[in-house]
């Protein structure tokens, strides 16, 4: 019904700015795809191209196999929820929702039924005769959703629809949007810069940076097996810890050393990275990858992070420790059983199997973590 296929699509603006570089993406029918990245990465541009609001400079865009890059926006079967909601200020809520159907010449009776059903589902029936200027932010957001819903489109586009809402409302709306996707059974393409939102909502995520796709995969893929430093850093809160160092051989094991630290890599990685001894690498270690169970204890001091606590941040159920070690600062999450104080020296055992190793120059992930490799198998 609505499979979208980008082939070698490039978008260049008249002033020379390159917004998208060689995008290849196939969006499957009925999937919830999230375009994730910082501002300027090209995610909104991609969305606008699907809607027909931006032209394709080079390459081809197909809906269900048919080329659509020359089809104007008002002829595509696409509905969109804008970040600013873009409600027509001089029309009533009813007319705002009905507008798309009117433009496509639906019979009035049919329009009325659809509008009222959508309004009921979104709990805005009592607002139908008001104007957008009289509504709160959350109410306007639901009107924008209603306007897109009634069209029952082949593709449902959303451009950061929750970013103007306050935190609590954002969380509850995420659930509503997920439920909407289940009930509508349509392809959803969703743009956001919020990685938590992406991980919650998506069937698949496309991570982008400066017009280039960094990685496409399921939330689990992206989180556990990041393709490069950018993806590893972008997902996860707090951001992943990076330790830069030199890959060395020490007897039969490989280790990464820098400053005062020397991190021994697990044996499986020794095989993977044997060829790269002597190169600069970056080790990626997530805040939650502290090995509290002590399973690896006994392997010696080289799987400990030893350093000085620089900050203690309680967050309700856990606490975050800022640790300085070998001149680098890191964050780890630990339980609340023990209390720590600033300045205290600490030795944290880490879960070596969850390390990633990235090439320092390109950022590419050359040593995907063991744990996830096992899960992928």
């Amino acid at each position, binding site marked *: 019904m609505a499979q979208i296929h980008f082939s070698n699509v490039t978008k260049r603006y008249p002033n020379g700015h390159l917004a998208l570089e060689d995008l290849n993406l196939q969006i499957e029918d009925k999937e919830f795809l999230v375009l994730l990245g910082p501002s300027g990465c090209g995610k909104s541009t991609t969305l*606008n191209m699907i*809607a*027909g*609001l931006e032209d394709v400079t080079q390459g081809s865009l197909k809906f269900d196999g048919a080329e659509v890059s020359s089809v*104007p*926006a*008002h*002829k*595509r079967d*696409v*509905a*969109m929820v*804008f*970040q*600013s909601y*873009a*409600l*027509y*200020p*001089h*029309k009533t809520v009813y007319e705002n929702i009905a*507008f*798309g159907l009117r*433009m*496509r010449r639906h019979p009035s009776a049919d329009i009325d039924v659809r509008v009222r059903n959508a309004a009921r589902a979104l709990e805005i029936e009592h607002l139908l005769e008001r104007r957008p200027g009289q509504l709160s932010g959350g109410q306007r957001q639901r009107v924008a959703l209603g*306007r897109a819903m009634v*069209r029952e489109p082949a593709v449902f*586009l959303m451009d950061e629809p929750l970013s103007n809402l306050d935190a609590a409302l954002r969380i509850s709306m995420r659930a509503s949007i997920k439920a909407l996707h289940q009930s509508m059974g349509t392809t959803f393409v969703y743009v956001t810069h919020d990685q938590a939102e992406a991980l919650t909502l998506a069937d698949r995520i496309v991570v982008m940076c400066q017009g280039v796709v960094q990685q496409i995969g399921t939330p689990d893929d992206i989180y556990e097996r990041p393709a490069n430093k950018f993806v590893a850093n972008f997902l996860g809160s707090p951001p992943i810890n990076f330790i830069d160092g030199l890959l060395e051989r020490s007897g039969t094991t490989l280790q990464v050393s820098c400053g005062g630290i020397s991190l021994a890599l697990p044996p499986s990685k020794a095989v993977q990275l044997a060829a790269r001894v002597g190169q600069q690498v970056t080790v990626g270690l997530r805040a939650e990858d502290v090995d509290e169970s002590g399973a690896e204890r006994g392997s010696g001091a080289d799987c400990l992070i030893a350093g000085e606590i620089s900050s203690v941040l309680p967050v309700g159920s856990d606490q975050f420790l800022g640790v300085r070690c070998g001149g680098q600062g890191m964050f780890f999450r630990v339980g609340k059983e023990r209390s720590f104080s600033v300045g205290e020296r600490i030795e944290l055992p880490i879960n070596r199997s969850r390390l990633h190793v990235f090439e320092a120059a390109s950022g590419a992930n050359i040593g995907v973590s063991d744990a996830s490799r096992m899960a992928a198998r």
Partner: protein
Amino acid sequence: MQAPGIGRRWLAKHSVNASDQRSALLLLSPMMAVLFAVAVFPILYSLWISLFDIKLTRPRSTPFVGLGNYAQAFADPLFWTSVERTLIFTVMSVSAIMVIATLMALLLNQEFRGRRLLSTVLLIPWAIPYVVDGLMWKWIYDSGYGALNGALYQLHFIDKYVVWLGDTAKTLPLIANAFVWKEVPLATILLLVTLKSVPADLYGAARVDGANLWGRFVHVTLPSLRPGFMLVIIYEAMMAVRHFDLFFILTEGGPANASHVLAWHIYVETFRNLSFGSGAAVAYLLALATFAMSYVVIRTVGNRI
């Protein structure tokens, strides 16, 4: 100077502190002085004069006639002719300004190379004085040698030169054209500003909703322009109703009173017939009419202050 006890309570009731009140009055005083002396005083004095029969040809006798001047004005057929001419001129001018300015604003709202040139050139008619505007068009409209005749003749639309300003049927439209030409830039800019305040997303939403170019114009552009339209119509109507300069330069109220508008009527009465009293009366009537019209403007614009 200490505010007296009562004064201080009154200020406090309006949550204004005395030093602020003092500073404000101080900063306002130059403007108030100028306006009172040069605006308020003449307005009131004008009203006073209109109650007397003052003729400069008969300076010693200035009897009080009360509303006599006003009654005389209403009874004067030339007065009603002026009202009619003024209304025709105003309606013609404002309609033309609205249409042309809207088209120009829509054009200038597009992105294209050379747009800066257009918006710079646009200011030229606005910058020149009405006197030169009149003179320029008078030369173009000239029956013997004018460019209008010359162009139409060369394009074979006419086979001999035609009388333009001297033709009573054509006089008002021609003067209106000269007026419109000079007023359009300001109207265009005001409309353009309104256009630019429309968020781009609104057009995007309309496109996704299925509206083609015409649909977007009708459902997004026009409704958004409404406040701009109101402002331009009211402002230009006010300007047209009181306009004088072009009538002085181009036709002096003629031919045969074809362009005898209210402003000209007042001028003739005051400075040619030298009857200050009756001139002031008609002037005051015009003032009242424009005051009524502009009460609306001050209400809408004033609420944004």
